[in-house]
């Protein structure tokens, strides 16, 4: 029997498979497909202080082994979340992680403060990396100073485990990671999407209403893996790795590179039950390699 449990600081996961924000709704949308309480955790879709209608259509472009989205943090705001959504999440027997987003430090603090009061929210993931909003978002995640400032501000109001989700659109990811670590982050998740663009050559127009959007899927996996590796060498807080994970092998790769847990995003669209395949595959892998505790994989890359 493999022990699949891992810890992200004080956050205990029954297994390292978490679903990524924006790709798994609030979880219950997937209840038809499998028992979602079997997940290690669910990061629910981004919540902002005010309701947001998101970007205009079109918001999606397919690319080689990937997709670009330009959703733009559409959500009904934190108050709606607290009053209408939270009670449905209480029934889900796994870690529910809130994804806090916003265009100003103050608005993120407001959301975090409200989320912090909800018992069944196991942790807060601060999204400082959304490429699809005009202000804030990625701007926080691409500056050492700004990423420190916003992390420290959220830390102030957040007694739950605080995970900072980094943007990959930077020259030096390790620098940003160290900055949020020193600002009090309990963990780091990376990567969010890469700023990208798709063009309709026949119409001679951008495909997305916002011209650029965020690239996700297997296309970005090699870069995401490199960043997890670099950050693993630079910080001592746990890392949640993601970016293009489609199967158990991909998940193992991220763990070997230094991730304690992983998130699965775009793959949920291709196969709504993919996380269960990954979980099964991870267990098989551990058995095959005679690994007792899956946590042994973290950073176990042999050089």
């Amino acid at each position, binding site marked *: 029997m493999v022990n699949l449990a891992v810890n992200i600081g004080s956050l205990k996961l029954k297994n390292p498979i978490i679903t990524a924000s924006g790709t798994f709704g609030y979880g219950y949308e997937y209840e038809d*497909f499998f028992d979602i309480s079997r997940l290690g955790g669910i990061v629910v*879709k981004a919540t902002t202080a005010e309701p947001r209608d998101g970007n*205009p259509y079109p918001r*999606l472009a397919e690319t080689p082994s990937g997709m670009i*989205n330009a*959703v733009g943090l559409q959500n009904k705001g934190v108050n709606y979340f607290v009053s209408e959504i939270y009670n449905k999440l209480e029934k889900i027997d796994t870690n529910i992680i809130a994804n806090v987003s916003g265009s100003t430090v103050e608005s993120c603090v407001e959301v975090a403060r409200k989320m912090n009061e909800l018992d069944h929210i196991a942790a807060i993931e601060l999204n400082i990396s959304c490429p699809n909003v005009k202000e804030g978002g990625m701007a926080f995640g691409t500056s050492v100073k700004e990423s420190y400032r916003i992390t420290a501000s959220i830390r102030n109001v957040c007694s739950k485990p605080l995970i900072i989700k980094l943007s990959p659109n930077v020259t030096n990811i390790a620098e940003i990671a160290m900055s949020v670590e020193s600002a009090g982050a309990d963990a780091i998740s990376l990567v969010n999407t890469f700023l990208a663009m798709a063009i309709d050559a026949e119409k001679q127009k951008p495909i997305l209403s916002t011209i650029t959007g965020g690239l996700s*899927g297997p296309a970005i996996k090699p870069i995401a893996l490199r960043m997890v590796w670099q950050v693993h060498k630079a910080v001592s807080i746990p890392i949640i790795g993601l970016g293009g994970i489609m199967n158990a092998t991909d998940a193992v790769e991220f763990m070997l590179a230094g991730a304690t847990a992983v998130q699965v995003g775009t793959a949920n669209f291709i196969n709504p039950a993919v996380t269960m395949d990954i979980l099964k595959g991870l267990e098989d892998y551990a058995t095959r390699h005679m690994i007792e505790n899956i946590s042994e994989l973290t950073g176990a890359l042999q050089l």
Partner: protein
Amino acid sequence: MKQIVDLTIIDTVKIGDAYSIIRCTSKDILPEMKPGQFASLKIENNPKVFLRRPFSIHDYDKTENTVAFLIKIVGEGSRTLTELKRGDTVNAVLPLGNSFHFDAKGKSLIVGGGCGIAPIYFLAKCMKEINADFDIIIGGRTCNDLLCLDNLSTLSTTFCATEDGSKGSKGFVTDIPALSNNLSQYGKIHCCGPEGMMKAIAKTAVANNVFCEASLENTMACGIGVCLCCVTKTVHGNECVCSKGPIFNVKELAW
């Protein structure tokens, strides 16, 4: 309940160069499906296709445990599907989305254009089953785009229009008298087709104060309402076509 199922192709029928109907079964009992709903099909063996592709339920036969799709070839995904052969499998997530709000009260009108005829056939079949009174109008660029005309005609009075006049009346479906002059005879209109066509119908329907619903298309990633990529502007803000639709009361749409 939504399911992920491996469908096995029983037969495929080419209609002209651009369309194909693929009929499938499954070793398990297919979930109940309603007209207007769709399936999200996985395209295998094509490196150019990454995401699933949405296709309306063109036909569903509970007793025979079959489901059919009418597919227009427009790109790599649809082409790959039409190249599947008897015995091949295709993975589907289904049934997705809401369905047409049809009933047997009064007289209804069903309008389909081009591959928008796909859900129309299943709808007409279901309406016939409940003995509803309805007319059908279908349109296309040429007579080659008038899909399933014969099958539809067996279900109810079917008018048709082609832009080049090669079959039925020449012009758009909106030129057919049932739609252009006599609209108030109908209690409900259900339509599916090119957006321009549906907008024109919606306009007349609203003017005549007739209930009208339209089946929208959109590019989709998840098909189940989580990615928020497939939105359409409604009076309530952006709504997902895959989960709040694909069928919308045209009054709700910001057209």
